[in-house]
């Protein structure tokens, strides 16, 4: 993907969450957004996902500038796979139906084709036995893997992970991180907001550090973690890695 932001701003009331961000990440496969809570990471992801309109500025993804009207935003959204912190599966549908519903209703697949694809996805993430369970009957890790299966079933051009492991215990975190790493090895493009620094370093090509609504610095993952340039980023990493 090629992602660039031009003077992007977003406020909630008095609170300037994204503060005039201009950046061109260039061509890359995977980007991790890190930084302190309230720094604007999730908001930035939501704006890129077309879920939240920016107040001003623009986003260019692979040479196309994002529209601002609902129709073009919807077109944009249905090419993306978003995975949320709280899984956000539909509680009234089985794991299988959670995957087939968007395939059928949004992407126009025939019911049997959608089911076949969904079963393939579930099988791939070792969830075949859980196809007919409702989300309430699944563990957190299983739910998040169903959510990932739902996101990639539509063959998105870009995957967006919004703190996908924040609600999980360490064992389930590992479960989900394994899946994300697998997707990276497949060559899927993704953007990841995370608090798992070790994982960000390991899985992302490129890392951007956000604080107070600005991208303080960004660069190849190995470099940024080994040798952060800004004081904010150094302090942040020192605070996090101390424990």
């Amino acid at each position, binding site marked *: 993907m090629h992602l660039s932001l031009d003077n992007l701003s977003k406020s909630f009331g008095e609170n300037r969450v994204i503060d005039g961000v201009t950046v061109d990440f260039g061509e890359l496969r995977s980007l991790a957004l890190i930084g302190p809570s309230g720094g604007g990471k999730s908001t930035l992801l939501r704006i890129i996902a077309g879920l939240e309109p920016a107040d001003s500025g623009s986003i260019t993804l692979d040479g196309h500038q994002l529209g601002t009207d609902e129709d073009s935003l*919807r077109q944009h*959204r*249905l090419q993306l796979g978003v995975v949320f912190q709280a899984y956000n599966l*539909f509680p009234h549908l089985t794991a299988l139906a959670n995957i087939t519903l*968007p395939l059928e209703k*949004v992407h126009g697949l025939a019911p049997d084709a959608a089911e076949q694809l969904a079963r393939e996805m579930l099988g791939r993430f070792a969830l075949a036995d859980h196809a007919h369970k409702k989300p*309430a009957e699944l563990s957190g890790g299983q739910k998040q893997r169903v959510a990932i299966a739902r996101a990639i079933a539509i063959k998105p051009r870009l995957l967006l992970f919004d703190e996908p492991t924040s609600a999980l215990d360490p064992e389930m975190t590992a479960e989900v991180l394994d899946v994300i790493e697998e997707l990276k090895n497949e060559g899927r493009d993704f953007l990841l907001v995370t608090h798992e620094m070790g994982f960000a370093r390991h899985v992302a090509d490129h890392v951007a550090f956000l604080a107070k609504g600005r991208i303080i610095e960004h660069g190849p993952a190995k470099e940024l973690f080994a040798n952060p340039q800004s004081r904010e980023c150094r302090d942040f990493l020192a605070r996090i890695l101390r424990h």
Partner: protein
Amino acid sequence: MKTWTRIASFLVALAALSGICAGAFALLDYQWQWRQAASYWRVLWDGWLTTVGISALALPLSCLVGLIFATVRRSPWMPLRDMARIYVELTRGTPLLVQLFIYWYAFGQKLSTDYRLLAGALILSLFEGAYISEIFRAGIEGISASQLETARALGFTRGQTYRYVIFPQALRQSLPPLAGQFASIIKDSSLLSVLGIAEFSLAASQVNAVTYTTFELYLPIAFGYLILTLPISLWTQHLEKRSRFET
């Protein structure tokens, strides 16, 4: 063992209440004339069937009215939302009896008697629909914002979000209070007697005017309503239990 205790307890309670009622009637020194009342069984039977018919019409109709107003209250256009809100507040704030007379003398009077029952069921549905719209509204508002966002993220249109995400869940949430409202509809249909619709309770009062056998008529009438409302009430309890386990 547990089931037996349950049944025994129920029978004891029933026996105690029956005893109290029997004692009260004994004190009244009432002359029972069941035979005289029973000779009018046909009128009562027709009345009961009419009540069943009105209810069968009013249940789906009031749900439709409720669904329309619940959806309009979420319309993007504010005057439309306000209209629905005013309607609901006016309807819930005034007695059904008063509304029946107003609707009836404004619109229904000119109808031939064939349409009376239909008009009565419609007025009843407009009244109950206001309550049901609030039940649906609560069900819709109980769906978390994150689900609506997920639907958006997946590329669902507004209509698809309602159809596949909101309504199925809202309906399930609404079922227990909705079932309770259904029982109210059946009972409230007795007020249609003031429009001269020969439903169950009007039948009783007409027979009573001839026989003066009040208890022999109204006790069976109470029983006739219970046959309709008790299963609904039991169903409601079942639904409430089930939804507790699911969430």
